């Protein structure tokens, strides 16, 4: 074979190899570009879906008034002039602890999302942590000291505190505040007899904005903070400013109740044997905490709930699947809350 042919063959091989490498590089580069633009489009349309859920009231416009699942899912308060205001009862109907809660199937059908998982999380803007630091019993009185920590997104926040201690027909309130490092102290004395079943309700209002008001409950029975209501004896389902009571045990006698907010405390009118009782429309930039007390087999009990029933999580758990979270600050009954809408692939079966 002549040397020229060998050189020509070698030159062709180089050209073909270079062309193949270029093609492979171009393919992978284009593939990344295409999938990248798909991601942008996906995030964009998921963001639009989340915006639609938060800013539209759905259909019927006041669907929570009928205590029925909507035909079109939306959380915005109907006819509100406040941007990003969410309906108190629409949110409450997402809490699985409420007797009138929507199922995931109801939400998914009304949201008309095919092959997209939906999750909703609502939480208080400011977190409250209650820790008992001291207690001492002398005679019939017990003294308590509690440390209250307030924070927003794990950053300490200064807040004003209004606390209530409620026991067996016993009620007292304490006011104080937390410092710039988010720490405050509350001290009080209560009758020894009520310490077993008493609850400490702490409301904290951020100094930077009075709409950032949160609550927390401390249960003396187990010396722990109670993030969600217990429904051992009663299930309390507030909706449309009506408190629906369901007894989970026999031998229950309800004696009365209280409604608390940051600025107010009011006795609830309870009619014996009536399952639905009105909730007063107190004007206060604060969540309500409702306590119902009575006797269960001759033992004192008190159960509680919040209105709106927050914190809550509804919808898909997104275990093992992609989750895109869109966070909003929303107004519910003049109070600010954090609302996270999660959208993504349906979990693998």
């Amino acid at each position, binding site marked *: 074979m002549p040397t020229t042919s060998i050189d*020509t063959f070698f030159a062709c091989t180089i050209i073909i*190899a*270079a062309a193949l490498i270029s093609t492979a590089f171009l393919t992978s580069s284009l593939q990344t570009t295409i999938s990248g*633009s798909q991601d942008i489009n996906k995030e964009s349309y998921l963001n639009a879906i989340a915006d639609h859920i938060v800013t539209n009231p759905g259909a019927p416009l006041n669907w929570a008034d009928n205590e029925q699942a909507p035909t079109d899912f939306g959380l915005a308060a109907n006819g509100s002039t406040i941007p990003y*205001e969410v309906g108190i009862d629409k949110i409450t109907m997402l809490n699985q602890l409420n007797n009138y809660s929507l199922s995931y199937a109801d939400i998914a059908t009304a949201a008309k999302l095919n092959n997209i998982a939906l999750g909703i999380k609502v939480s208080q803007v400011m977190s409250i942590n209650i820790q008992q630091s001291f207690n001492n019993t002398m005679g019939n009185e017990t003294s308590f000291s509690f440390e209250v920590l307030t924070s927003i997104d794990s950053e300490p926040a200064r807040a004003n505190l209004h606390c209530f201690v409620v026991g067996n027909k016993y009620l007292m309130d304490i006011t104080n505040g937390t410092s710039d490092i988010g720490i405050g102290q509350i001290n009080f004395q209560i009758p020894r007899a009520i310490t077993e079943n008493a609850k400490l309700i702490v409301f904290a209002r951020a100094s930077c904005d009075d709409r950032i008001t949160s609550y927390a409950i401390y249960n003396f029975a187990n010396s722990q903070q109670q993030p969600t209501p217990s429904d051992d004896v009663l299930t309390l389902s507030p909706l449309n400013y009506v408190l629906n009571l369901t007894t989970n045990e026999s031998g229950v006698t309800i004696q009365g109740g209280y409604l608390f907010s940051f600025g107010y405390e009011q006795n609830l009118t309870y009619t014996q044997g009536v399952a639905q009782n009105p909730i007063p429309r107190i004007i206060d930039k604060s969540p309500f905490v409702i306590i119902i007390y009575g006797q269960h087999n001759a033992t004192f009990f008190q159960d509680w709930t919040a209105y709106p029933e927050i914190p809550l999580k509804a919808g898909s758990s997104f275990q093992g699947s992609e989750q895109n979270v869109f966070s*909003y600050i*929303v107004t519910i009954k003049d109070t600010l809350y954090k609302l996270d809408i999660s959208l993504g692939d349906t979990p693998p079966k």
Partner: protein
Amino acid sequence: MNIVKNKKGVARVIEALLASVLLMSCLSFIPVPSNMKNSSGNLVSTARNTLLSLDSNGHLAALVDNGNWSELRTCIASALPLTAWFNLTVFGKDMSIINSSPISNAGTISGKIVSVDYVCASQSVAYTIYVLRLQLSEVGST
């Protein structure tokens, strides 16, 4: 004669090498996509939501009226996630900067900065107009 033929063969190899170098260098002009998961749309939505929600009752304008910049900073920070970097600039109606101290949080910026302008009016009798410019980005590792 053989020497001339050999030289032609070498010339082809050199041509091929040059063509390959040209082809490869062309590839460098193709933009390599970097971190295509750009969430600027989401950041704009977050910035707009933050300003609208916080000022729904004229609260931001009231803080500007009082020149309460530290409270304004706390207020904005409380509404934004920890992973967000922000810088707020307050302008008067003639677009002169009003805030005497920076209204920002610390953090290393990763990704691009989005900016949202929001016009608000004081609730006082003076009815002063302010323009709030909220710049937002993500913090964290690049």
